[in-house]
């Protein structure tokens, strides 16, 4: 068969396989979150279901599916139903442009070229920033449509926080864009060819740290999880969601976490590249998986150690500390690149 048909078949396979893999990963990540929460606190986590408790997520899913679907009477029903989807569908869109292996090059699968990316998009970075902003809609609409005081406060807080930290995030990735001379993820990863000292986290260390902190705020994770602060507002914008709808929010949070870990490793840590060239024989997707797992572990570790900021302190960090630092980072990067050439 000819090349375009082969590419079409590969595209369909990739488009189906990737979301399925991510969903399976999320199920196990939820289990690992609880298990590691236990370990960090000096206790064992879930142990009952399955070996080492690993089927806990599936037990949770069955339990959530069997619950009654409660929608408050005065809530805005279509918006209420739609809100969770607005959070994780953009994440899947971003996964479509992320490379998880070598792209281009010769035929490597049955004589046809198999690109390890669903869509090699030129402006992938901008796409990431743009669709990341759509998640804010999901959170704010969830809070607003529940028609309850707590939820409204939580939703607005979360929305404001996510919008502020997106700016810092945007400016810090422009540094990477300057270094790679392109906005496409594929080019950014190719620009980090070599060993781990060629990766961008060394020259862009300030940008990397700022990006990491900004993503903590985007994901609504501690120390920036004021939107769902249990002790203060019961559960913020999630209060009125019960059963599987709440499960969808949880799912959305973890899908976002996987995608952002993938992006972080792509932008700063070499993506699918091996740290040392001698280890090249291990395929790209495995390296990406290892890096994603490492970042998710780091997110969990931070969540279970640090407590949260007060709201105004959170906003002041976003605007008064992270944004100026990221602009400074951008300026310094631009100057250095102009000089060095």
């Amino acid at each position: 068969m000819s090349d375009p048909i082969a590419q079409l078949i590969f595209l369909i396979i990739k488009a189906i396989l990737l979301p399925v893999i991510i969903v399976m990963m999320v199920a196990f990540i939820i289990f690992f979150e609880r298990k590691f929460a236990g370990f960090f606190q000096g206790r064992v986590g879930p142990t009952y279901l399955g070996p080492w408790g690993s089927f806990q997520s599936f037990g949770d899913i069955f339990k959530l599916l069997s619950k009654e679907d409660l929608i408050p009477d005065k809530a805005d029903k279509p918006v209420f139903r739609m809100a969770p989807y607005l959070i994780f569908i953009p994440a899947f869109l971003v996964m479509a442009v992320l490379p998880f292996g070598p792209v281009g090059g010769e035929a490597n699968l049955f004589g046809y070229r198999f690109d390890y990316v669903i869509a090699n998009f030129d402006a992938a970075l901008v796409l990431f920033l743009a669709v990341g902003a759509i998640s804010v809609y999901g959170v704010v609409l969830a809070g607003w449509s529940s028609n309850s005081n707590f939820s409204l406060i939580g939703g607005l807080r979360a929305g404001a926080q996510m919008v502020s930290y997106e700016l810092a995030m945007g400016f810090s990735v422009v540094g990477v864009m300057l270094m790679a001379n392109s906005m496409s993820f594929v080019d950014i990863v190719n620009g980090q060819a070599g060993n781990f000292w060629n990766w961008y986290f060394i020259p862009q260390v300030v940008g990397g740290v700022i990006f990491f902190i900004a993503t903590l705020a985007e994901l609504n994770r501690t120390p920036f999880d004021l939107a769902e602060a249990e002790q203060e507002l019961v559960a913020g914008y999630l209060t009125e969601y019960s059963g599987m709808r709440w499960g969808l929010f949880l799912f959305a949070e973890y899908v976002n976490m996987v995608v952002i870990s993938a992006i972080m490793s792509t932008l700063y840590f070499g993506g699918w590249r091996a740290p040392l060239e001698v280890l090249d024989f291990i395929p790209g997707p495995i390296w990406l998986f290892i890096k994603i797992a490492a970042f998710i572990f780091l997110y969990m570790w931070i969540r279970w150690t640090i407590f949260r900021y007060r709201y105004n302190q959170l906003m002041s960090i976003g605007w008064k500390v992270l944004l100026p630092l990221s602009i400074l980072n951008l300026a310094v990067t631009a100057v250095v690149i102009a000089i060095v050439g």
Partner: protein
Amino acid sequence: MKDLLQNVRQVVMPLLADAHGPDEAREEAPRPTLEELKARKARSRQPLEVGSEVITVSMGPQHPSMHGVYRAELDLDGEIIVDVRPEVGNLHRGVEKLCEERTYHQIIPITDRLDYIAGFAMNHGYCEAVEKLMDLEVPARGRYIRTIASELCRLSNHILWLGVHIMDLGTQTFFCICFRDREYVLDLLEMLTGARLTHSFARLGGVAKDLPDGFEHRCRKAIEFLPKRVAEYERIIKHNRIYYKRAKNVGIFTSEDCFAWRVTGPALRAAGVPRDLRKDDPYAAYDEVDFEVAVEYNADVYDRFLVRMKEIRESCKIIEQCLDNMPAGPFVARDITRTLPLKSDVMRDSASMIQDFYQVFKGPAVPKGEVYRATEAPKGEMGVYIRSEGAGRPARIRFTTPSFYHGQALPPLVRGEMVSDMVAIFASIDVVLGDCDR
């Protein structure tokens, strides 16, 4: 190789411990005056705009903030609290009325349930009051055992306070860590008294039983390693930038406010007033042991944390001294008309059996009169007022518990603060509803 590692450790550990130097800087800082504290408080408050839209939110009796069924109805303007209307009484069990129908011996298990986290401290305070009324002297060994048990309860209370406070600020990890450490204390209390939380161990004239075999060894091991745990907590919290931001200059209760609202205990000591009933009005064996009163001067949440950490260390010192100097002798006074007899006596001696019957059916011989006695419970000053008509049952008992006053003091002092701060302040003031509602 081992030497090399030892040397590296000796060089690196002090660096890590001193990773933030500010201890010396803090100790040399000038102590703030009352006016300065009031100015800081005014600065941290937000201006209340008149006429903006106010949402009423009920931090209702059920909330995951773990203080029991305290209801606070907040009027919020965005994040700022415009008004707070507290509502207590959801846990009111009529303890004082129950006590009127029971003899003085039967009241002891009821006092356990007042501040259920530090049960023995409540028993102790009550027994001190009754003994003052009856003019009954407790033998030395009994006083030392009571001191040890009271200090164990203080350890248990402060460790639990730390866990709950940090959990309110955001992370559950601390809660689990603190409960794990509290297990050691509760284990000791179970070995000593027979129960982990509802001790009922004090009796009129002393304690119920002597120290069991092996208790001293276990206790020494526990108090040797608990201060190290405290150092670990401090390593996470004391210099944490987030804790600085959330606890420094937040919730300032000046000494004037404390006097106005009868706030006692660690909150008062964090405001610079060195009032500790264990030193000012000693009872049990407190005048025979050597310890320091923990005082700080900034009156904010951070200082209350420091005061409690210091109190944990001092409690360990007190327990160690009591174990070292434990006198021999009886652990309970033997008084025919006023105390319960020992079980071994009852089974051998008919006079003791008659005493047993008399004490159970008629109660102790308490003279007519009234008494007030306050002791230093872990949360503050707990006072017991008893009015007796000469019978074996009190005519009126009144427990003035610290949490009631602390819960009452909260609303006027958080108007103008933010919601997150209110949660932190409420946690630092240490309110337990069993204590508050009786």
